[in-house]
Each structure stands twice: as C-alpha cells, then as structure tokens.
C-alpha cells in the first residue's frame, strides 16, 4: 500500500464521500428537471454511472485475468475475483435502478425492449455462474486459471450480446448520447460527470477495501499455520 496520503484508502474514501454527496445534491436539487420525463429522469444520474461502473469493473476483472494467464502471478487471481465481485454488485444495482426508472417512466417494472437492461440481465447471469464455477473448484492454479478464462469470455460476451439484443429487440430506450454528443444541457452533463466520477471512485474504494480485507484474511491464515 502506498504511503502517499491522497492515494491511501481513507483519503480516497473521504474524497468519494464528498463527491457522492455533491453528486446527490446536484442531481436531486440543483439540476433543472427534464421537460419530457419529469422527476423520474433524475434516477438516470445514478443509473447510468452505476451501469458504466459495472462495465468498468468487469473490464478490470478481465484485465487482471489476462495478467494472471500471461504473467502467472498468483495475486492477480484475487484482484480479478474482487473486481468481478464488485462488478456483479454494481450490475445488480443497475438492474434495480433501471427497473425503478422503467416503472417511473413507462409504468412497468421490466421491459424486454430495454436493451441495456436485458444486456445487464444476461451479464448478471453470466457472472453469477462465475461464482458458481469458483465455488465448485478447489483453491489452486486450476481454479485461478479457469476463472480467468471465464472472465475473459465475459468481456467478449458484452459486445456480442449487445449486438444480439439489438438485433432482437426494438430500440425505445432514449439514447442519451447521440453521434453528435450528449442530448443534455450543460448543467445536466456536468451533473452526470460528477455522478459518474463519484460512483467510479466508490467502486474503486470498495475494490481496494475488499482486496485488502481478503489479503489480510489470507495472511492471518498463513500466520496461524506457521505457529506451532
């Protein structure tokens, strides 16, 4: 763990709390309401960042998995696992916030026409199976390598699934980012960015905390065994 104060976990946690607080204030109070969708649109400021963060976590998990297979260093297994764990949690939150948004905007808790939601459902199932895979294998190189390969499959599945879902469904999800740029006013965009930064930082802090916790567990176990 680095000694620089700004990079230490407590420092980051404080920064996260600050950012999250500002994001909430901005999203709920400061920013003007959307003309079309009204108050329910405010959920968007938390839903989309959570979704993007979930993608980021899965990507990080896949990257660590690649490092494990490529360099063979054992520590990458735990890093990959924790990243995917975080990703799955944020994935579940995406489904929940997305569902709330759907209910508020269109009156139903689930819509198969919502590409992003459906994609997250597929990914959520995929990554839940990741944990089942890990659970069924004994701790060791076999489990680490199989998990890593599976994590890589996940990341490749994201664009392929997206294409498949696109082909399978009509698109009525209001696209926020068009080819020209975000269809949001300046203050909306700024709020979105603050919220996105906050949630990403939150995920990173949780990742570091969980990783440190698991490493500590492992070290304690080693110590206990070394004692007579």
């Amino acid at each position, binding site marked *: 763990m680095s000694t620089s104060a700004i990079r230490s976990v407590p420092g980051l946690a404080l920064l996260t709390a600050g950012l999250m607080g500002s994001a909430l204030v901005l999203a709920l109070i400061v920013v003007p309401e959307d003309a079309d969708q009204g108050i329910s649109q405010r959920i968007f400021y938390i839903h989309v960042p959570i979704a993007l963060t979930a993608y980021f976590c899965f990507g990080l998990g896949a990257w660590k998995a690649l490092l494990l297979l490529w360099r063979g260093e054992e520590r990458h297994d735990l890093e990959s696992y924790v990243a995917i764990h975080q990703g799955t949690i944020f994935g579940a939150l995406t489904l929940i916030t997305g569902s709330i948004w759907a209910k508020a905007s269109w009156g139903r808790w689930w819509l198969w026409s919502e590409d992003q939601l459906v994609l997250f459902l597929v990914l959520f199932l995929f990554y839940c199976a990741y944990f089942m895979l890990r659970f069924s294998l004994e701790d060791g190189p076999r489990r680490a390598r199989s998990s890593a390969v599976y994590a890589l499959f996940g990341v490749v599945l994201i664009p392929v699934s997206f294409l498949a879902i696109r082909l399978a469904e009509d698109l009525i999800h209001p696209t926020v980012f068009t080819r020209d740029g975000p269809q949001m006013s300046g203050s909306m965009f700024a709020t979105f960015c603050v919220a996105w930064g906050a949630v990403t930082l939150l995920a990173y802090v949780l990742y570091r905390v969980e990783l440190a916790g698991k490493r500590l567990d492992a070290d304690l176990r080693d110590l206990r*065994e070394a004692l007579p």
Partner: protein
Amino acid sequence: MIRARDLEKRYGRRRVLTGVDLAVPAGGFAVVTGPNGSGKTTLLRVLAGLAAPTRGELEVHADRAQLGYLAHEPLVYRELTALENLDLFGRLYRVPERRERIGMLLERFGLWDARGSRVSTYSRGMTQRLALCRALLHDPALLLLDEPYSSLDEEGAELLDRELGALAGERTFVVTTHDAPRLHRLATVEVTLA
C-alpha cells in the same frame, strides 16, 4: 536431471508436500517411499509438470517428449483396444516406427494376444501392463512411475523387474513404491516422505 529444493504443494489449506528436497542425476534411480497420504503421488505429479508447486524451486531437465509417466490411474481409454490406445499415444508422441515399437512392447509385456480387445475387458493386472507400455512407448529419458508394481501378478512383476533392470543406468527413474526392498538393488537415491 532433476533438482528440487524445499518443494511445497498445497491444495487450499491442505499441505500435501512440505520441504521436499530431491536431486537425481541423469541415469539415477530414485525410490520414494512413505505411508499412504504422504504425498508420493503429488510429488510425481509436480515432477511431471501436472501440478505446480506452491513454493520451492524445481528444475526438471526433460521436456514433455522425453518424459514417461505412470500414474495411479492407467491413463488409457476403456473403450479402445490396446492397439488403438498405443497407436493414439504413439502418434501424439511422434514415435518413429510406431507399429513395430507397439508390437514389441505388447509382446514384451505379454499383451500381444489381447491387443485387439477393449481395455474394459482387461483385468487390473493387464491394464497396468498396458499402462506401462504407454509410459515406455516413446522411449523416454525420464520415467516417473507411481507404484508400478500395484495390481501386477507375479508374472507381470517379473516382466517389470526385467524391464527396469535393463533400463536402469541408461534412463533416469523416479519410482514411488510400498515395496522398497524390491527396488533396493537398483536405487541410487532413496527418499522417504513423512
């Protein structure tokens, strides 16, 4: 040929091998003994490259083509005949003059008559002999044999004695066994696992 220092192998929290040192020169014959569960099989798996040691240093100066491995399991397909099994492994190991070599080994181990029958019809002793043929098929420089005498009848054991006697000194061996006295005359290194 083999140099191992402070080898450790863990499966989760279970430590199967601890602090194992082993040095086997080319042409050497190492005999590994120890009670059940002491990690003899695991040691051979680590030496073969099937298992990665969790700690320690290991050098094995033989690549996959030069390594012959006899496991607890026979490592042959039940639904294939002896000929088909050896033919498959002969191809994978790029054995030159494959057919002749297979014929010779089958005859040497008394399996020639049963060569066209499926392994599922074999007795345990016959299966073990076939497994030995498989391990010796590509004339490996390093042979790792896990309790080779198990399941063999008197005749089979004598065939194996003869084979080991002929190869010892020219090939390197690491053999685990319960029956140390039998191999004592061939052994150049003896290791006991706790």
